[in-house]
């Protein structure tokens, strides 16, 4: 039964973007480290694409240098998690933990779901982030720290991904 303070839905964030690309191209852009390094926060996302397989996001040199120049010691793995469900090129579910910041790392694993659906002439990509127990990470992925240089979160990543897949170049910056 859902009440006015249902914690599960109140801590879930949902993002959707339409991209003029094939489901396979979008799948590759999410799961291939050479692609993930080209948009949003960049970094090489390494997935072992089977249930129980590992997820590790490794920062590139530029990202590392940038973080360190702002006074954040940058770990060798900035995000880790485990693959829960994989159905290429339609659905990918993983656990997801941010390791860049000790407060976020201490919040533990969240759950991230990617869903790709084909429509007329384009595909929708829906990102559902279940952030129960992770208020600091929730603020970051909602883009609340953008003015302080923490990036614009999922909405920004998806806008950049759309730009990259449709025009061949990410947005400025």
């Amino acid at each position, binding site marked *: 039964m859902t009440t006015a303070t249902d914690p599960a*839905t109140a801590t879930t964030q949902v993002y959707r973007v339409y991209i003029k690309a094939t489901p396979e191209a979008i799948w590759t852009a999410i799961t291939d480290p050479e692609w993930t390094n080209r948009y949003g926060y960049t970094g090489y996302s390494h997935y072992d694409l089977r249930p129980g397989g590992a997820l590790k996001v490794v920062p590139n040199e530029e990202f590392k240098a940038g973080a360190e120049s702002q006074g954040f010691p940058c770990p060798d793995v900035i995000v880790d998690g485990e693959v829960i469900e994989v159905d290429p090129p339609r659905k990918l579910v993983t656990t997801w933990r941010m390791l860049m910041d000790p407060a976020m790392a201490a919040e533990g694993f969240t759950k991230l779901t990617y869903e790709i659906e084909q429509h007329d002439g384009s595909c929708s990509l829906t990102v*559902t982030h279940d952030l129960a127990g992770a208020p600091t990470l929730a603020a970051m992925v909602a883009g609340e720290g953008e003015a302080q240089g923490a990036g614009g979160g999922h909405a920004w990543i998806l806008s950049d991904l759309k730009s990259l897949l449709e025009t061949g170049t990410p947005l400025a910056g």
Partner: protein
Amino acid sequence: MLLGMADDTDLHSVFRALADPTRRFLLDLLFERDGRTLTELESELAMSRFGVMKHLKVLEEADLVVTRRSGREKHHFLNPVPIRLIHDRWIDKYTERNVSALLDLKNQLEEPS
């Protein structure tokens, strides 16, 4: 066709959806607390259930609201991506800096002392 024009058609429904104060209020409610049901949203408005449904439908068609089912409940989530697309495509980086300086000033001046 120019590349920019394709964006205009995509975003037409977003501008139309945002033009109505009730729909902006519904988005504000979801911003405050996401994932609400129709019944929860309806309780915040002096409007019939049918009226609220109609507004939510326009927001869904513009993709500003995405719904998820869990059991018998349908939950409404604010999707900020269409607004982000407007921001990223149309707001020049340098303009943005000036605008945010002006917004800071506005906030400071309007802050009750």
